[in-house]
């Protein structure tokens, strides 16, 4: 559907685009992190593109990625980047959509922020930081949004156990101290 968007993108910013794919009706372009802002600015301002509406930004953690039904080369291994940050954009005028994906390694989880171009990404980047620990360079106010500041860790990462609670307050007169019972430390982090 929006294949011509991908074609125009690779024609103009060929060096910054690692590869493109088209799955289930969505167009995806893999972008290098350092040219993300340039590509995004072009996508916003070019008259044939005019991506003016931000849809979402999120992150995929591929630590447990062992898909069934795909060849074994698709499984995640230590040398591949662990995180993928995905930005979805939409154009009000031309009605096409695109997803930009940036591969992020675990030892340096940083991505340039697009909150300056689209204010709608401000809170969503904060949410991605809160849940996955991805730092967005250039974000005006990068702090936790869903969880409280005393929370340690990034819960949506695959190595954070689902029910590891970090309570802020409990009753003193409960017979069993639930704080000790709750925090089953099943992970190193």
């Amino acid at each position, binding site marked *: 559907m929006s294949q011509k968007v991908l074609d125009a993108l690779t024609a103009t910013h060929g060096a910054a685009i690692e590869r493109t794919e088209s799955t*289930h009706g969505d167009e995806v372009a893999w972008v290098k992190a350092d040219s993300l802002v340039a590509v995004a600015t072009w996508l916003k301002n070019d008259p044939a593109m005019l991506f003016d509406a931000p849809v979402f930004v999120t992150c995929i953690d591929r630590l447990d990625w062992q898909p069934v039904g795909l060849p074994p080369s698709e499984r995640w291994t230590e040398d591949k980047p662990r995180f993928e940050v995905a930005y*979805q954009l939409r154009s009000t005028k031309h009605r096409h959509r695109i997803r930009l994906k940036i591969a992020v390694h675990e030892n340096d989880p940083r991505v340039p922020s697009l909150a300056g171009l689209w204010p709608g990404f401000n809170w969503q980047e904060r949410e991605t930081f809160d849940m996955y620990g991805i730092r967005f360079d250039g974000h005006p106010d990068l702090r936790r949004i869903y969880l409280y500041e005393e929370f340690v860790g990034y819960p949506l990462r695959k190595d954070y156990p689902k029910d590891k609670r970090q309570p802020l307050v409990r009753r003193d007169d409960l017979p069993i101290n639930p704080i000790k019972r709750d925090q089953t430390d099943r992970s190193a982090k």
Partner: protein
Amino acid sequence: MAADASTLKQLVLGRKDVQDLTDTEQELPPDLMTVNMGPSHPAMHGTVRIVLTVDGERVVKSDVQPGYLHRCFEKESEHATYTQIFPYTDRLNYVSPMINNVGWAMVAEKLMGITNDIPKRAEYIRVIVSEMSRITDHLTCVGASAMELGAFTPFLYMIKCREWIWELLEKVSGARLTHSYVRVGGVSKDLPDGFHAELTYTLDEIDKVLAECQDMLNQNKIFRDRMAGVGAMSKEDAIATGCVGPIARACGLDYDVRKDYPYSIYPEVEFDVPVGTTGDCFDRYLVRLEEVRQSMRILRQCLKQIPDGPTMIDDPRCALPQKRATYNTIESMIRHFKHIVDGIKVPAGETYCFLEGGNGELGFFVVADGTGRPYKAYVRSPSFVHLSTAGQLIHNHMIADIVPIFGMINMIGGECDK
């Protein structure tokens, strides 16, 4: 004597008498004040904390802090099968739960590639219950906002209408509020007998009640003064911040997923999309009321056009077998067991599927890995995006204006905080 008394007071209490204050000292201090609108507040629309910096009554700076209802939908989804996630989706936008159910079913079907094979009757039923949920969403929003501005009677009338719709939805699905009715591949049960007649009667009654409420509110000076001109947003701001739904339509942006990216059977029904002009709270209220009328128009058409047929796709990959077969043949029993325990196997891939929720474009971005549980399930919630604009909407307004602005954003806590 007076001089002695006032010096005594100054020495003892450290403050002067009023008549001894100089002119500049008599004015109120010009410092800004920090006021906390705590996570528990009288507005009925979800739990959020706003730390305001005010200059008298005027808001100078605000820090909106959501997350007090973060119930970890995404983390729970990674540990639950696709069918087990339906109750979690109910509790996202809990005033229009059927729409979330339909959205989740649509994303699983898109990944499986069976979107075009869903039986027509199932699609019609999905649209009928979605539009009924949309009506309850708008009624709750408008009713609660009116109550917060002091109009208690429209609230009672709209809740009365909502009760009628909830009773009908209870007959369809079994629960008043959190239905979990839709399944991947169709819906779980057919509509009950007598549903057509009851729904038609209810829609006529709701028409009358809406007319009464409009009489009470539209020309009401107090209501108009508190809503008109308050919290206006321009169309460019709405687009740049990602606003969708009634809020964006009130600003003049003509974007409705049902018209622009039609899905299900929406191309076969006729309806209009109300679009406002100024983007203030009164326009949002008018847009919502008109959308209720358009939803009723869609419902009447669906009731006429709905065909007979199966309500679930005949595909062993996602449909549970019939009970008679499950109890009598071993293959069906194994299939039933596998579906319940392992879940519906969705082939590996990722997609973003979106539909028009009560608040706008509600989307699910799902990464599937071929097992019965999603690898990642992200919800693009419109309430979260709209709440992010709340800070700029209440800027330079008075504290009392926060109530209609916050009410008309329709920030549903479950959807905003996931």
